[in-house]
């Protein structure tokens, strides 16, 4: 019914995230791109596990036994925590870099370049 629209959205999000990473020059903006890319892959994993007319994989009063697949949700939880850990570390790097160079523009902090 919805055809593959969620998958298409995943692809679009991934492309936007990649574009932010590759084309933007500001470190914070790049990190925002990374977080979008992470969200895209999370959404991809969740969408993989969705079944038509299913309920959440938690037994409550809800009578139906047609449940969405639980494994992708478990994987996605792991992925979200990894994402927040990575962005915390990256932001701390950016803060330190700003203290040394006074800027977070990628083009201006390339001192290592030959």
């Amino acid at each position: 019914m919805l055809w593959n629209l969620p998958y298409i959205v995943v692809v679009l999000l991934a492309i936007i995230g990649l574009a932010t990473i590759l084309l933007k020059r500001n470190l914070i903006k790049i990190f925002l791109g990374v977080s979008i890319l992470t969200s895209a892959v999370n959404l991809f994993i969740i969408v993989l596990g969705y079944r038509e007319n299913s309920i959440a994989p938690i037994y409550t009063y809800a009578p139906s036994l047609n449940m969405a697949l639980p494994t992708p949700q478990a994987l996605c939880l792991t992925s979200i925590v990894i994402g927040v850990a990575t962005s915390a570390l990256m932001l701390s790097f950016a803060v330190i870099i700003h203290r040394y160079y006074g800027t977070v523009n990628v083009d201006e902090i390339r001192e290592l370049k030959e």
Partner: protein
Amino acid sequence: MIADVIVSNLPAFLVAVPLLAAFLCPLVGRISPNIRAAWVFAAMALTAAIAYCLAYLVYTGGTVIYVFGATAADLSIPLDSGGIPIRIMFTVDPMSALMEIIAVTVGLGVIIYSLSSDERRSGLENYYTIFLLLISAVLGMVSTGDIFNFFVFLEISSLATAGLVAYRVEKGLAVEAGLKYLMVSTIAGIFFLFAIGILYGQYNALNMAIIAERIQWTPLDKIALVLIVASLAAKCGSVPMHFWTPDAYMMAPAAVTAMLVVASQASLYGLFRFVFTVYGVSLNYVTMGWVVIILGILSMVVGVTMAIPQKDIKRLMAYHAVSQTGYMLLGVGVGLAVLGDQFLLNSYGYTAMEGGIFHIMNHALYKGLLFLTAGAIIYRIGTGDLNRMGGLGHKMKFTMVFFIIGALAIAGIPPFNGFASKFLIYESVYQFNPILAVIAMVVSILTLASFVKVFHAVFMGPPREEHAQVREVPLPMLGAMAFLAILVIVSGLFPGIFVTNLIEPAVHALTDQAGYMTIVLGGG
């Protein structure tokens, strides 16, 4: 009884012991420096002992399976699950065992070195915490038989490595190098997760063996393979994505650099594991083999040509690390290219792969040794600039000897271990395609030239007056270097022992996809 319990749970302890030690390290490390050093050393030694015991078990008794959370450790398939492994499992085959041996050996040497060389720095309790975390991540990566678990350990190693590379925050460059590494590995990790999603979505499984059984080589599988190879190649510093390596290797403390080599090789191991075990039979061998070969050749050539004009000793060595990674890729790639043809495989394919995998081990040893000597030099004279060195030969005799051993080994001069593995690669690659062998030899000669230059710049020449106070480095650092140097010499003098006992089982385990699947899926 207790011994039985410990032996049957060795794979769990292999990761749990360094992890527990790391969790407690920030607290224990605050008490006093001596307790911290004792704690770290004890944890590392215990881990090494566990790894050696496990490797012994694997080499004598065949692949060890450990299922987390099952009633029995080898119950890979529950009785009521209809033939699917549902839990995470460790599958320690000889290849994994080899990597574990390498990791803990280098790790032990590096810890001893680091306890002495880094003692004047600040934040050491956190530093050693991350060090232990990195070691446990590497051990987990090489042991696991589950693709998502592999991803988790990959991320641990990414974050830990980035933290270690940026350890010298008083230098802005270090932070920049760490950030660069973190960006590359994060994006690689995200695409790796995409690949996991594709494989999971098609086959509803996360275990390597069950995916290997079900895989059908659809277009989606091809995309997943491309994503996996690209991300892991970026992590191990192969050529198209090698730009992070020189910065990271140069700015990290010497001990960390030696460990970085091991971490990169764990990614390389993951690449091999995915290509051979997960995709295996369904793969188009020749194409894939040539892709790996071309990656390897490019890495070799680009690495060595970039290395020659370098002015910084660690940066130069970093480019050589890229170049040496190419040898491994070349050897294994040749093996992969002929994997479909049993005759060619027997005639030279196995030899090539033995060369490539032996080179992993040798490279970890001699490159670790070289980085440690470079660290020793920098420890005493405070700079890595080749132009500001010279005449250190008299002041640092032992370091010079160790440097010579490492340099000769990396250049492939007999009787050191570099020669042993490179020779295996040359002779087999020559049968496969002579041009490749010639390129490999030329690269080797260029490597030798480069190291002769370094040797001359550092140790020869007249003594400079600003280095008048330079003395030999402390004893633990010398001990660590000697430890690795002896291993280099031993594996160079008796390569046959190593190849027959360690490398051959590893190569056969890597190429034997059906055997892997039988062990995991048939062991109900």
